[in-house]
């Protein structure tokens, strides 16, 4: 079932001191943590130990006196370590056991000793002893303990252990029936898996591992603690969630939430938070779980009580947040509104640790993102909006002078704090105008966003542009603060060269900044944005294409002739038509919107139609004939109506054989919106006071439009009725 690992075990027998040096050389002197100053003569790529030693002895590398002195130190230190390793090879099992125990006592809390032993190859031997069924249980347990101790050292230690295939060996060990041994293996596994350098996938390679570990949960409080901790750290993807879920993680771990041990409770809680994250199935199951007759949401709510440790409050709030976002708990449930939300707001307060504040703010942002009511409540809870302003004050000027350690700590978290605050502001302001106003009125808010847009950290930039996007939904802010702070400048800069996720947000914001009432529209236009947007429409990402064409559409709304021409030129008719056949309806709609905005006032219509009339008519025909939604067709008919409003452009419709028939068809369509748009079109064509109106009226009368119009004057929809009457009047005049 488990793969047995025997490779990597060095040939038996004590180590010679050459082997020691060899080992050191192979592992790379220079990075060897013990002797940072020690320089070794450079050696050719692949050396064997004898050759290398021979070269030294022959004086070919002429090591300095300093080198000799240091080498002596190496020998001295490694000699003691080597002694421990040598004893692992003792023929008497009793001596081996004593050796392992002594080794255990020697390595505890001694990182140098740990590194030494790893370098000297103790790990493969320990693993070998651990796996041998001939070894006594005591010996195997002690081996697992020593390995666990080695894992407690540096990240390099973990890497070396993982490279020696320690994980399968320990997982294999779990099959043993002895609890003490299992606990030692689990403890070691725990230490390895919680390290960021361990690939979590290793837990899932063998499909029999998870069910077996799950069955060990009932063995003891220690197994519970270690296993839940492993799960909490190794559940990183939806696949992991499903594996654990399918093996009964919820039923097995739920009872641990009321374990007498705080550690077990805490780790079980963490498990649930990672299991429920963006997972509807898990979340839906969780709400129905009872622990000791109590619903899980109540258990979590109790864990958020203010006298509980902060870590517990925060993690419980996360669980409920994820369950709520997955739709398992309603957003107006008391445990969300009155417990989770206030708890998360508390986590943002100045009294909490920087890490807690980051996590609290991010979770809160996630919780209320889709719900305006939660946003409104949060915006008045405990002065959250001004509380967040404090997130930008790290590192504070005081800490810089007084406390280097603090400064270091602050610096490390400064980016995280800023991005968390931006995210939370973005979430808070995504729907409510009053909240947006409150946010922009927070001290230096706009300056902070502007500088955030050009920060080095991608996370901060993304969060800042998100926040800007959220605020850009406000007409008032677009008119005032956005313009005052020239946010378009950094935004344009951001658009030049950024990863897609930033681009999506930035271009989305740009769309809003290009709305006709936005004072930023002019300067943006002058900065050559058209080319940039046109290039976005060619992106592979539908979101970027939509944003590109959307921005162009906004830009073309009531724009100058010059701008429109520029748009058409830059985009190119070919690209325009490609977009009209885009698989994404959103893109299609916005492209039609763009066309409609381009074809707005009479001179513009005539001008564009004179140069691109043929293609446009083709595209219109194509869409009207194709399978499209009502909205798309309506938009297309509106374009047609606009064309019909042109002086010369009218003729393009009149001379087209099909088009009047199509209009006729849509006037009789079952959908009022389409009828209305088509009637509009006819109305424009037969409008009096224009050149050749009489001929067109006559021609259309022949085609039977008068009858249809007459019929439509009887329509139940008042606006359609009005429109038809107006059109009829053209004939009567």
């Amino acid at each position, binding site marked *: 079932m488990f793969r047995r690992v025997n490779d990597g075990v060095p040939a038996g027998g004590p180590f010679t001191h050459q082997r020691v040096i060899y080992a050191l050389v192979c592992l790379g002197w220079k990075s060897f943590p013990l002797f940072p100053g020690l320089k070794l003569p450079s050696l050719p790529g692949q050396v064997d130990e004898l050759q290398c030693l021979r070269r030294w002895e022959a004086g070919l590398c002429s090591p300095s006196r300093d080198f000799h002195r240091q080498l002596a130190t190496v020998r001295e230190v490694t000699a003691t370590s080597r002694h421990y390793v040598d004893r692992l090879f003792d023929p008497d099992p009793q001596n081996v056991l004593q050796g392992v125990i002594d080794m255990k006592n020697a390595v505890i809390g001694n990182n140098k000793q740990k590194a030494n032993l790893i370098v000297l190859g103790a790990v493969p031997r320990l693993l070998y002893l651990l796996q041998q069924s001939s070894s006594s249980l005591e010996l195997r347990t002690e081996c697992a303990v020593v390995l666990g101790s080695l894992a407690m050292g540096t990240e390099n230690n973990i890497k070396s252990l993982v490279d020696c295939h320690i994980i399968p060996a320990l997982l294999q060990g779990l099959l043993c029936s002895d609890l003490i041994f299992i606990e030692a293996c689990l403890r070691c596994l725990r230490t390895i898996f919680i390290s960021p350098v361990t690939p979590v996938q290793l837990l899932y390679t063998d499909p029999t591992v998870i069910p077996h570990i799950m069955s060990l949960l009932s063995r003891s409080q220690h197994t519970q603690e270690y296993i839940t901790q492993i799960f909490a750290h190794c559940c990183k993807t939806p696949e992991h969630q499903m594996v654990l879920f399918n093996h009964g993680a919820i039923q097995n771990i739920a009872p641990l939430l009321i374990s007498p041990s705080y550690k077990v409770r805490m780790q079980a809680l963490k498990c649930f938070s990672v299991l429920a994250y963006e997972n509807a199935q898990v979340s839906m199951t969780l709400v129905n779980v009872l622990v000791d007759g109590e619903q899980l949401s109540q258990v979590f709510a109790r864990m958020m009580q*203010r*006298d509980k440790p902060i870590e517990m409050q925060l993690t419980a709030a996360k669980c409920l947040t994820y369950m709520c976002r997955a739709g398992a708990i309603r957003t107006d449930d008391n445990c969300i509104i*009155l417990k989770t939300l*206030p708890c998360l707001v508390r986590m943002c307060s100045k009294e909490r640790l920087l890490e807690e504040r980051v996590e609290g703010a991010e979770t809160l942002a996630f919780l209320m993102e889709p719900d305006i009511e939660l946003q409104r409540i949060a915006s*008045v809870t*405990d*002065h959250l909006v001004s509380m967040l302003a404090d997130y930008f004050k790290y590192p504070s000027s005081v800490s810089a002078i007084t406390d280097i350690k603090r400064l270091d700590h602050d610096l490390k978290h400064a980016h995280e704090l800023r991005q968390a605050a931006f995210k939370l502001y973005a979430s808070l302001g995504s729907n409510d105008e009053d909240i947006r106003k409150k946010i922009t009125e927070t001290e230096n808010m706009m300056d902070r966003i502007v500088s955030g847009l050009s920060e080095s950290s991608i996370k901060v930039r993304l969060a800042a542009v998100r926040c800007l996007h959220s605020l850009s939904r406000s007409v008032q802010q677009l008119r005032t603060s956005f313009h005052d702070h020239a946010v378009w400048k950094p935004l344009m800069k951001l658009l030049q060269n950024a990863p897609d996720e930033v681009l999506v947000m930035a271009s989305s914001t740009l769309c809003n900044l290009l709305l006709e009432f936005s004072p930023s529209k002019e300067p943006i236009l002058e900065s050559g944005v058209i080319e940039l947007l046109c290039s976005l429409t060619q992106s592979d990402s539908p979101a970027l294409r939509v944003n590109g064409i959307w921005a162009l559409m906004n830009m073309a709304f009531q724009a100058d002739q010059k701008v429109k021409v520029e748009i058409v030129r830059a985009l190119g008719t070919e690209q325009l038509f490609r977009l009209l056949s885009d698989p994404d309806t959103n893109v299609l709609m916005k492209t039609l919107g763009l066309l409609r905005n381009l074809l707005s006032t009479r001179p513009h219509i005539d001008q564009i139609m004179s140069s691109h009339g043929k293609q446009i008519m083709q595209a219109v025909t194509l869409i009207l004939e194709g399978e499209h939604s009502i909205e798309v067709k309506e938009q297309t008919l509106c374009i047609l109506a606009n064309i019909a409003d042109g002086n010369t452009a009218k003729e393009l419709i009149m001379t087209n054989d099909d088009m009047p028939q199509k209009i006729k068809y849509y006037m009789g369509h079952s959908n009022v919106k389409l009828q209305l748009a088509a009637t509009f079109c006819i109305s424009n064509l037969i409008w009096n006071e224009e050149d050749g109106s009489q001929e067109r009226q006559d021609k259309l009368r022949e085609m039977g439009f008068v009858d249809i119009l007459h019929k439509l004057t009887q329509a139940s929809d008042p606006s359609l009725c009005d429109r038809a009457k107006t059109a009829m009047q053209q004939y009567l005049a």
Partner: protein
Amino acid sequence: VHIFSQSHLCLVMYQVLKEAVCGLIAVSWLASRPIRIKQARNLSSSSPVVSDSARFSHWTLIESCPAKDSWQAVGIGGRNRIAMSGPSSGCGFLMSVVVHGDLALNEQEKELNQRLKRLYPAVNEQETPLPRSWSPKDKFSYIGLSQNNLRVHYKGHGKTPKDAASVRATHPIPAACGVYYFEVKIISKGRDGYMGIGLSAQGVNMNRLPGWDKHSYGYHGDDGHSFCSSGTGQPYGPTFTTGDVIGCCVNLINNTCFYTKNGHSLGIAFTDLPPNLYPTVGLQTPGEVVDANFGQHPFVFDIEDYMREWRTKIQAQIDRFPIGEREGEWQAMIQKMVASYLVHHSYCATAEAFAKSTDQAVHEELASIKNRQKIQKLVLSGRMGEAIETTQQLYPSLLERNQDLLFMLKVRQFIEMVNGTDSEVRCLGGRSPKSQDCYPGSPRLFNSPVHKASSSQTYQTGTAEVEMELDHFSNGVSESSSNGFLNGSSTHGIDLEECDGDMGEIIIWRQLCGGSQAAIERMIQFGRELQSMSEHLRRERGKNSANKKMLKDAFSLLAYSDPWSSPVGYQLDSIQREPVCSTLNSAILETHNLPKQPPLALSVGQAAQCLSLMARTGSGSCAFASVDDYLH
């Protein structure tokens, strides 16, 4: 500075108590302290007899340790508490309240009392009553009150700000609340919704909205601003209107205040609040109506959760109180306190074992301790006559010099006669010793429910075994009492044995003086003697109201056919022996120039006193630091 040091002193006391009291009660005391482990081992290995005896005396200690309440009575501050928390008086009070008036109203009253008791257990309402309604006296004329003075409506013209009107609650917020909270529901916002909710000191002009004047603080509904003793507000929270519930929380520990709206905290509004503020509301336009909730109903905001946080904070502060460099002295001091406590209460075997294991000297002779112990045993088992006799024998001049004490003992003897437990009536009694001993006055009563209820849960569940073992040990030791560390006379042991035999008997038959006619006659005769002694005392020393009341209460017992269930029946409860016992004990110790009270009890009293001082001087943290929390 003074207050600060007081509260610190108090914290120090807690440390003492915490350590000492834990040490006192738990058998595992020796083993639980790392420093002591070795000595404890020595103790058990070197001399099994001593070890046995030590164990025995520990059990005895648990068993015969006076019930907690009386132990506190020894302390300075404790006496009040007993008077207050006596089970009979508390119930009686509630009952008398319930008898009158509308039932629903009384239900509300009851709920209010319960909630206030739960929220503010540290408040002594005799000293500082809690606000329960708006004051009909302390309001402007434009304010109308209804619904038991909980509903406020505006009845002025409401034309200008000069027409503003406020009302204060009946009482200021006591500091001992720690955290105080009340809610106001807006029934109607009236014409303009110019409503202010907040706090003000006594004497602040009521023709104004809260917040506009010095020592006045308010949150206003029309603009959502907070007013901190100023005519101009600061942007604070959302506006509020009809249907909203606004809460106001005063934190008396850091002197801040925050508001809530519909159960959501709006954040700190005011800091550096002065003490003794009254809940206040103000209205300004016609039609405005608001209802107050001072605890009559559950609150919308989870105030108890907020209180939990502060309780944890304060307790963490106490737990982390630094004891500084003098770690060793600390240890020695605690040991001294424990030892002196044991000696004081004559737990001589334990005291000796403890002193030995901690290398301390006992300052009183063993014989003396044993004498006191003997007397105490007699008092506690209700054998007053013997107790008085023994005292006179051992300390001949004591009672002669202290006539009031003698009187008190004799009154108690009278009560015990009524009870049928005193030795004089017992020998006259027709009842068999067996049934007598099962009577609720026998030594078994040390296990009485009162005692159990106040001890920790472990002891409660373990009581049955303790009882059995005690019997076993006491018998065992009385046989091999060569070391002389016997707690209690040998009669005591026999008593218990007899008692053991009657364990199955459930029905307890209560009869005056044990039911014997001769005993009743003796009792009446004794009563006459007592009466004449009282008269004699009055002639010689003038009136003494305490003595008079004591005698009156005791004689009142005879007025009832069943004295035990009479209003004065509490006197017959064995728990009443404990104050008598400790008074006598203290008097004996005084004659030996030893302290009247053990330092431990003193420090308990000192801590309790500190707490009440903190409450009086406005340090809110006293709310979350009850001495009881550390006495278990």
